[in-house]
């Protein structure tokens, strides 16, 4: 995949390496770096994985590794959760039915 100058892309950076992390972070978090992702308009033609410069929507210049071209939103409603169906049925049944004060 090749990005053309001016394309909207996502870049990646390591902000702090494992060694540079704050003293108070828990053990499991200390094992991994602090990473960041920023989106912007790429300033040169480049391939995924190359180090590039982008100009973000606020006009900042940021350098980082090109990871995605035209980054899309992929979040959704997830897989169907059948348990949820039962809640409305039950609540309506209790409301309509003869359950009494305990």
């Amino acid at each position, binding site marked *: 995949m090749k990005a053309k100058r001016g394309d909207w892309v996502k870049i990646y950076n390591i902000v702090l390496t494992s060694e540079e992390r704050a003293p108070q972070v828990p053990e499991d*978090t200390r094992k991994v770096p602090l990473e*960041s992702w*920023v989106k912007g308009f790429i300033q040169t033609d480049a391939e995924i994985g190359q180090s590039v410069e982008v100009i973000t929507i*606020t*006009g*900042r210049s940021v350098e980082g590794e090109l990871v995605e071209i035209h980054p899309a*939103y992929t979040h959704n409603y997830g*897989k169907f959760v059948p*348990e949820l169906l039962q809640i409305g049925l039950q609540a309506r049944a209790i409301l309509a039915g003869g359950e009494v004060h305990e």
Partner: protein
Amino acid sequence: MSKDMSYQGLMARRNEIMKQAVGIDYAIFESGSIAFDYEKMMRETGYTLEEMQKIQGATGVGNTPILELKNLTALARKMAPKGKGARIFIKDEASNPSGSFKARRAANAVYHAKKLGYKGVIAATSGNYGAAVASQAAMHGLKCIIVQECYDSRGVGQPEIIEKARKCEAYGAEVVQLTVGPELFYTFLKLLEETGYFNASLYTPFGIAGVETLGYELAMQFRERIGKDPDVVVCTNAGGGNLTGTARGLIKAGAESVSVVGASVNLQGLHMASDEQFNRKSFTTGHTGFGMPFSTWPDRSDVPRSAARPLRYMDRYVTVSQGEVFYMTEALAQLEGLERGPAGNTSLAAAFSIAQELDEEQIIVVQETEYTGAGKHIQAQLSFARENGIEIRFGNPEEEIPGTSIILPEHPRLIKARDFDMNKIRKSYIKNCLEIREIEKITEADIEFLVQETKSSYDFVKEVLKERNIE
């Protein structure tokens, strides 16, 4: 000479950067000891209620409707002893421009930034506040950067936070996404220093004062509609600003007899800075992981003195389980025809339980709702939990283990608000004051301050100090 950009180097410049970025000199409110002049800070750096209503009204924020949840009230009465089961209402804050009450906080902060001549605003938030700041920045023509803690080290993101990034970008904001860790603050400081933008902190006096309109409106709406103040107001509690602002607004309306209850989702046992546990929770805010530390030490925030000081106003603090909140979210849609996000539903689950302790003619209010949608819908949240190995089943919510299981109540009678011991929380706050500020000697002004901070008594504070051998 180039600046030291290491973690320690930047953190050492923290106060200097913050002063530039908030425009408040906090030192003038300090006493040099535990006490500081909270009310003076709120008065001199905040806005009057009238000014805030004007600022918010100009961008369509506020004046949200109150809705009576008649079917949920009827359901609660089915479980309650005879004569019990208060009327349950919600204040539909989802109808604010950015979809939550956070628009009130952001409206003031962004207005203030613009007034002071800043070119842009930055906020460190993974939640509704980011969307609110981005929305307000768009309205005022300011630039906006939102810094989010979003992914774990596998690159897996909380669906709710990913949705919030989309919403911020929809309003023209730049979103900086990070993996788990408290060094989010480091990135935040770096951006403030680089851009010279305003720190639209959640915890400034103007931000918190922005929520006062909510409490004030609420009292006025009930007087107009029902002819009296509500008996109980339940606020979902995380950083404490929601509860603090609402309670202050109620007091400004003269509704001082209203009992203010904080409610948080119980995430006990999960470490908030843990990479491995990050995606094992189904709530990104409104939970005990924020609620408890911020209640017992509010000054842990991104400003020297937080304007959110929930213990000052809290009469009671309860928890509900994740499964209970999911149940209520679905019940709200099914019985009331209102599809809303998780934030207010934490309070709603608590209110459903507390209503059963109150008399039928009494009124309990959930003071916020938020928008829902892809990523932050219960379907998405539960599906995500299941994919991350969390067991989901019907049963007794008492059996839920945060990070391991989500137990949907097998009957709504099992939904129970569980009380924290308020005195224990108050003691914990006082202990933090003494230890973090390394206090060995205490002044009368400090004692008076601690009484106010903990909504307790002189005798209570003296007793706690005595236990710690401080005179």
